[in-house]
């Protein structure tokens, strides 16, 4: 806990953005550990994969494009400080009448929660209660969540989409993007170095396992921690690793932007399609009971399908975002090259 506070203070104070990003990753990871101690294994899993994984990749990708040194800024901002202290004080004031931490007779534990804990194993038949609440009781929230990811993917594509396609794959060389500031060299799709044997061999060994693990997480989410979202992130991570080690163009030849756009949409449609199917069968939207003659089997089928939808959309959206960032780097590199000639 104290480590967390120290970490966040350091994020605030450190001036190198690269270091700040790493610290953010550490904070996320520490947070994930704390979540485990608070019994939230699913959340911990996700936080580790997202907070410490994907978001760090995104930050680093951005830093490579924009430079990593913050302007000198020792100034102390009084206004924001006052606001923060006010916000903190209100919350601190509120804590004194909060129900004590961890008591079993708090309203949170007594009102709505028990139903999920007591009845979900019989109503849904899935041991992981988080999955049953996520995909069934509050399945519509999860549908919204998939839509949020979909919206983010669409938004990033809208904002970053290349205006024109690269002329020729061969043209692609490492053009310094902004050497003075970043000290790194440009085109991210050149990142996969062709000569390093060790990463290639290790990646070749690892990547199949990553995919298998992702599939395990996807389909075992009913029983242990995991589910479509985590699986999607892991799957995307596998492909991103492949892209980083073997060059982006190879990854693109395996799964290109058009396919990705199709997949993002397909995931949302699959999820919604399950809902519509249950409507057509006479239930309410996302009422899985009607999907099969036996309600519990129907729930199983419904959860399996919507989790698959989540997994597909998340994988595709993460890849779309990654490709968009990398594509932008290529565009800048190409521009710089044009200006040189």
């Amino acid at each position, binding site marked *: 806990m104290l480590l967390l506070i120290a970490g966040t203070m350091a994020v605030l104070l450190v001036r190198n953005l690269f270091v700040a990003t790493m610290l953010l990753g550490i904070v996320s990871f520490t947070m994930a550990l704390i979540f485990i101690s608070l019994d939230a294994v699913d959340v911990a899993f996700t936080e580790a994969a997202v907070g410490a994984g994907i978001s760090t990749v995104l930050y680093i990708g951005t830093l490579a494009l924009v430079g990593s040194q913050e302007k000198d800024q020792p100034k102390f901002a009084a206004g924001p400080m006052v606001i923060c202290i006010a916000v903190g004080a*209100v*919350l601190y*004031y*509120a*804590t*004194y*009448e*909060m*129900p004590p931490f961890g008591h079993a007779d*708090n*309203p*949170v*534990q*007594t*009102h*709505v*929660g028990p*139903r*999920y804990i007591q009845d979900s194993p019989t109503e849904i038949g899935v041991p992981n209660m988080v999955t049953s609440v996520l995909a*069934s*009781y*509050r*399945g*519509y*929230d999860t*549908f*919204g*969540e998939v*839509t*949020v990811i*979909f*919206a*983010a993917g*669409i*938004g*990033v*594509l*809208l*904002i970053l*989409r290349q*205006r024109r396609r690269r002329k020729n794959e061969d043209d692609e060389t490492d053009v310094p993007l902004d050497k003075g500031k970043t000290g790194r060299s440009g085109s991210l799709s050149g990142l996969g170095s062709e000569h390093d044997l060790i990463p290639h061999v290790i990646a070749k060994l690892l990547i199949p396992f990553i995919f298998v693990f992702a599939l395990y997480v996807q389909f075992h989410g009913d029983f242990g921690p995991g589910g479509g979202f985590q699986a999607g992130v892991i799957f995307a991570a596998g492909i991103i690793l492949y892209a980083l080690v073997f060059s982006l163009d190879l990854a693109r030849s395996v799964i290109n932007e058009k396919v990705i*756009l*199709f997949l*993002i*949409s*397909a995931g*949302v*449609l699959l999820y*919604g399609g399950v*809902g*519509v199917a249950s*409507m*057509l069968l006479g*239930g*309410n*939207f*996302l*009422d*899985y*009971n009607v999907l099969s003659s036996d309600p519990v089997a129907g729930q199983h089928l419904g959860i399996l399908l919507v989790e698959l939808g989540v997994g597909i959309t998340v994988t595709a959206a993460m890849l779309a975002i990654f490709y968009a960032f990398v594509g932008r780097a290529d565009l800048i590199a190409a521009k710089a090259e044009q200006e040189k000639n």
Partner: protein
Amino acid sequence: MLSLSSQYPILVAIVPLMAAPICALLRGKTAPWAFTTITSACTFYISIQLLFSVASSGPISYELGGWAPPWGIEYVVDLLSGFMLVLISGISTGVLLYARESITKEVAPQQLGLFFTAYLLALTGMLGISITGDAFNVFVFLEIMSLSSYALIAMGERTDRRALTAAFQYLIIGTVGATFYLIGVGLIYLMTGTLNIADIAARLPEIEGTRPILAAAGFIVIGIGIKLALFPFHVWLPNSYTYAPNIVTAFFAGTATKVGVYLLIRFIFTVFGENYSFGELGLTDILLPLGVLAFLTMSSVAIYQTNIKRLLAYSSVAQMGYIILGISLASESGLTAAILHIFNHAIVKTGLFLSLGCMFFVVGSTYLKDLEGIGKRMPITTFGFVLGGFGLIGVPLTPGFISKWYLVVAALEKGSIIGYSLVALLMISSLLAVLYIWRVVEVAYFRDPPDSVVKREAPMSLLVPTWIFILGSFYFGIETSFNVGIAKVAAAFLMGGA
């Protein structure tokens, strides 16, 4: 097989939602537009059906996934949310009719599929917020709306690169607002153990005085206040509205902030109840001065703008001030005025932004200096703009007059010094509105157009939707039974039902 009409509550939200991924796959210049427009029109039709059935047979509840609330998520349509649904989908459809030619000037053709996808998602978000009966589900749909609107605003970047910074600023402030809302909901959940709005309302009275609930109310009001551009949290709005593509501005001006107001009304009256909100929380003392400050300062700031789009954006913040004032009066007539003004302002402002969009389409700028003599170059468009301007000022026969009339009545009901001074302040603010509209009129009619240009009107596909909104606003200003009727009944329901 159930009848289709029993599924209307969910269809209104998932029709645009499911259409969005399909739209993302469409190519070409017209296909995405046509698809989006048809979808929006379907939504409009469903909304009207819902409103009718609510008006005749009372609120509808729909259990998602077949789980009874508070365990599952519930959709609730009452008169107010039905009213919002009709308003949002109606404005969306009207703006879309206008969009086909207008948007080609501002967004690259190969981006159109994704652009309309984002548009549909924003529409989904707003409808979802209006109809849901679950406090956390509100957050999810709020984020769907916000994320797509950040992207839509950034699309103005082809015209002016400041659209990017505007979108970023909105993203930061908007996310802080949404997270504040999330903290507020968390505090309520901590105390009540439930997320269903009706269930929260039922359980709150026992623990009303406790500090966490007080803090929760504060966080929720501030969080929503940021989203609806409540003065002084409005800083993001003028930038976003100014630099976003025209149809996006027209769409959001009519709907996005109104959804925020809807949420605020929902929380003040349904969740916390007006006795707690205005008694213990003392929201009148907070919201009333903010509302007054909003319309006075923002109307004054609007006078000094050089860009008409920005001028209208400041005027929007000022109009929000009227709505907030109506809510803060804590009376049935005040609430009626607020609901009425949500509707009236939405129509008038959309019409204004659309006619401004016509000018942009022809001239390529919305700066006053580039629009000199526009009244002679584009007489039909400019006339429409002026009529819309009358609506903002509140000239009789316009809807602006109706809502101000109810606001004045509500203020007078308050009696005493405060009531009378409020009326005086309302008059001053209307005069300020006269001034800023006059600035446009002066430039449009009393300056000579540059010699080189010829008289040219905007194409019919732009003019017709614009005039639909302008004439529509007059219709609702004269034949007021629909909007006033619903506002009155909804206000009575909210005050009585809480």
